């Protein structure tokens, strides 16, 4: 498959979606169903990979691109991922000049509050997926308490939680050994 075509297909998916995995149906339809250059298993794997490595979920197009065409495919995926981000510059120029207008201010404020609510909604499936036993629930509760009560960098909370999880998971093994 030509890299330019792959880029345009992935761009079509990213530029018409507004969040993480929302572009997935387009990618699946084009690459799995119509062109047969990617399998469903590979597509699922690319989602799992981005979920378990750092970076935004939208990165799955990089992984999918790699499955389709190796390194050049991954590059096409990366380019398709970053291209729409540039669209914020005209938006910024438009809104920035009017930022002091009370109606524009109110519109932006309402969007921020609404996205806080949407974020809470997004946390529900994430929690169902991630909080599967006493240990993960404990980690989540302790993390939230630390976030609300201290000024600890969330980077350390992520690393700390990973370390605690490793220690607890391997504790029984150590005792046996």
């Amino acid at each position, binding site marked *: 498959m030509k890299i330019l075509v792959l880029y345009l297909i992935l761009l079509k998916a990213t530029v018409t979606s507004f969040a993480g995995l929302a572009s997935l149906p387009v990618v699946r339809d084009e690459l799995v169903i119509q062109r047969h250059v990617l399998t469903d298993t590979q597509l699922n794997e690319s989602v799992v990979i981005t979920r378990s490595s750092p970076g935004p979920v939208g990165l799955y197009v990089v992984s999918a691109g790699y499955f389709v065409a190796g390194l050049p495919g991954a590059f096409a995926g990366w380019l398709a991922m970053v291209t729409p981000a540039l669209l914020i510059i005209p938006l910024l120029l438009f809104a920035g000049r009017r930022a002091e207008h009370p109606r524009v201010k109110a519109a932006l404020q309402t969007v921020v*509050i609404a996205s806080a609510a949407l974020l809470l909604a997004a946390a529900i499936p994430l929690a169902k997926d991630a909080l599967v036993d006493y240990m993960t629930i404990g980690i989540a509760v302790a993390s939230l308490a630390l976030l609300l009560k201290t000024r600890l960098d969330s980077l350390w909370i992520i690393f700390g939680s990973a370390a605690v999880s490793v220690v607890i998971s391997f504790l029984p093994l150590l005792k046996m050994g």
Partner: protein
Amino acid sequence: MPSLKQIAHVFTRYGNLTFGGGSATIAVLHQELIERRKWLPEEQFVMSFALSRLTPGTNLLAFCTSIGWQLQRFAGAIVALLAASVPCAVIVVLVTVAFSQMQSNSIAQAAIHGAVAAAVSITVNTCWTLAKPHYKSGSRLRVVLIAVVAFALHVAAGLPAVQVLLIAAVAGFLLPEKKR
């Protein structure tokens, strides 16, 4: 004003460590850009955030591009976008290559397990970080109302996120808060 090198440093260091949604990264960047380094005022940060939610594609990357633009115009935007997207893309390629080995590595699995649990709390905490600056006396009812309606439209009525946000933008534009 920060240099391009400083912009590259901050977005490389803090823009690439997202687990479970970009919201946690926004919180980290808020801490770093507003509270610690004071590179730009809160209002500009909030404007970038609101606009990034209305930009197609990965919101976090649009957000970083916007912050870069406000700091150093076009060069800043490009540097921030590259810094926030190249390192994690390289990691994803490496992980894709090594995926079969990763799946059977129980230490990596346990670490991911813990990190994802923490990501849930970071996401919940970010909701509050976002709403808090607007939640002041006289506006509380308004904030709660907007949040409840947005949540209901998305969860109960099943409206896609971007439609909810567009409705929010229109509602805010038509019904600005009264000056007291």
